[in-house]
């Protein structure tokens, strides 16, 4: 591994490291589809927050194909590419009677977190 030097900092900061993957993967869902987040409870890394698990929402936008963090975190390389969607969950679906009036949550979810509902 090379030594990190001050000269390398501007390039690193400006370049970044996108998790987007330029591969052709078919989406499992399309905008407008109703989906239910899986009730998974792994002890390893996941980006599916507990408050979303088992809840039903609607696909609002397809962001394209990204590495899947749950497997990438374990392997150390970008892998398992799949579509990420912005999914809209109504406040009442997440929080029942405690929901704020006229409020919702949009969250980015991977194909492997979702089933058709």
């Amino acid at each position, binding site marked *: *591994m090379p*030594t*990190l*030097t*001050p000269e*390398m*900092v*501007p390039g*690193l*900061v*400006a*370049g*970044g*490291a*996108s*998790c*987007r993957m330029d591969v052709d993967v078919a989406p499992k869902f399309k905008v407008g589809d109703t989906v239910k987040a899986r009730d998974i409870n792994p002890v390893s890394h996941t*980006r599916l*927050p507990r*408050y979303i698990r088992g809840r039903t929402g609607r696909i609002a936008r397809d*962001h394209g194909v*990204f590495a899947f*963090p749950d497997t990438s975190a374990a392997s150390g390389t970008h892998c398992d590419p799949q579509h*990420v969607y*912005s999914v809209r969950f109504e406040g009442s679906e*997440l*929080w029942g009677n*405690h*929901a*704020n*009036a*006229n*409020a*919702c*949550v*949009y*969250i*980015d*979810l*991977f194909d492997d977190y979702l089933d058709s509902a």
Partner: protein
Amino acid sequence: MAHDHAHNAPPSETAMRVKALETLLTEKGLLDPAAIDALVETYETKIGPRNGAKVVARAWTDPDYKQRLLEDGSAAIAELGFSGVQGEDMVVVENTDDVHNLVTCTLCSCYPWPTLGLPPIWFKSAPYRARSVIDPRGVLEEFGVELSDDIEVRVWDSSAELRYLVLPQRPAGTEGLSEDELAALVTRDSMIGTALVEAPAS
């Protein structure tokens, strides 16, 4: 009292841990400590919310740019040169008369560094992360933003790979201002969604 610590107190546990890590990385030849100084200087003086304010002011004054920004945030922000680490894939969401947007990250502290800099402490705090999704209106009220119930509140939980920037509403009475003058009105919090942009006092 400006100080809340004694000058002869030992450094905090966190500070000592950071020092130990830096020493180890340096001794193993992985790090020139000057690189740390360069990184700190970058986020203290070059990269921060003034970048995002320029994006907002451009969107307010250039309808074509605004359209590109809302369709493909990453590309439109790159036009102004504010790309990079933790801003690789950007989404911009627009506040309107009917919709108010609020950004959070319930799992950690995901935040658009190239346009807003490093996140404020409260953005990373457990209370903000927990309450922003279940009681956004209550959180907004604590920030001094009171919204009527007919305005939809959209909370954006940026827990995956996309980073979010709020395009706040341009305040009334700013028609005569230049792009630079408009940018000066735009606050960091207005681009997270915990504030509105105020018109300048006349």
